[in-house]
């Protein structure tokens, strides 16, 4: 009887641990897609400024075969710009969580391009 109870407890612990590992994002990172499957005009800007976060990652993804200029950057609520990176094509910038910021991405080509998404993490 006791053995059966122990097994039951062990199974319950395993289920809880499995759920915790599966549901909690890796290393506590939260990801948010702030631009999603739309055409972006030249110098058009996508942004996540609902809530400022201590960001660690910002990415623009045109899709495969990208070859256009892009930019990702972050701005504090006070207006200071940080982690500003210009790229050829798909672009990411990963960095320590130094500043409380909003995230931005932009198509810096002279033509309108489809952007699959821009994504930030904190």
């Amino acid at each position, binding site marked *: 009887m006791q053995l059966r109870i122990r097994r039951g407890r062990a199974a319950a612990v395993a289920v809880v641990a499995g759920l915790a590992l599966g549901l909690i994002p*890796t290393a506590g990172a939260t*990801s948010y897609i702030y631009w999603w499957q739309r055409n972006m005009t030249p110098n058009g800007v996508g942004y996540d400024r609902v809530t400022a976060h201590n960001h660690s*990652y910002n*990415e623009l*993804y045109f899709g*495969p*075969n*990208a*070859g*256009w*200029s892009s*930019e990702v*950057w972050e701005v504090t609520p006070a207006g200071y*710009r940080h982690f*500003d*990176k*210009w*790229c*050829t*094509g*798909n*672009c*990411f*910038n*990963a*960095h*320590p969580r130094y500043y409380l910021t909003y995230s931005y991405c932009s198509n*810096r080509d002279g033509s309108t391009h489809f952007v699959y998404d821009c*994504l930030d993490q904190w």
Partner: protein
Amino acid sequence: MKRQRIQFAAALLLAAATAGLLSQLVLGGNDKVKIGNGSVSALARAAAATDALPESVLTYPFAARNFASKRGEGSRLLHLEGTLRLYAVPGKEGMLCLIEVDDAAATSGGACADRHILLTGSIFMADRQEDGSRLVVGLVGDGHTYAEAEGRRVPVESNAFVLRGVAGSSVSVGSPTAAQTIDLGG
């Protein structure tokens, strides 16, 4: 008489279309200077343990979306300068990726683009520094020998270059016989 006019108009149209096609295909139709054939010989050299990408880079969404394989197989360390490392990584569907990792700053970044870009320029990243200047790192195809900004020229080694303290909005890359201008934007 009417038939002759129609024939003449048709001949004119045909001549115009032929001239247009020739100007695009034979004469270029594109004023961009081309260097090399887009190949990157650094990717073909024998692999070493130092060529493997850091695990942190492989965990980012960028890796799964852009690299030809999940583990970034085929990557090559192109450049090592202090704590800054540059890697080339084969990308999906004809793309090629440039990855930069700075251990001291605990930062990393990447750019992936169609490898045809290498014919007319570079797959680059330009990072704005605290002093307002930019750190420009680039991946170029075989045949490129230098990169230059504001009169400062650095050699291309293993298909890569690093230009620090760039104040302007463009850099140039080139070979002994040709030069290309890269607009950094901003």
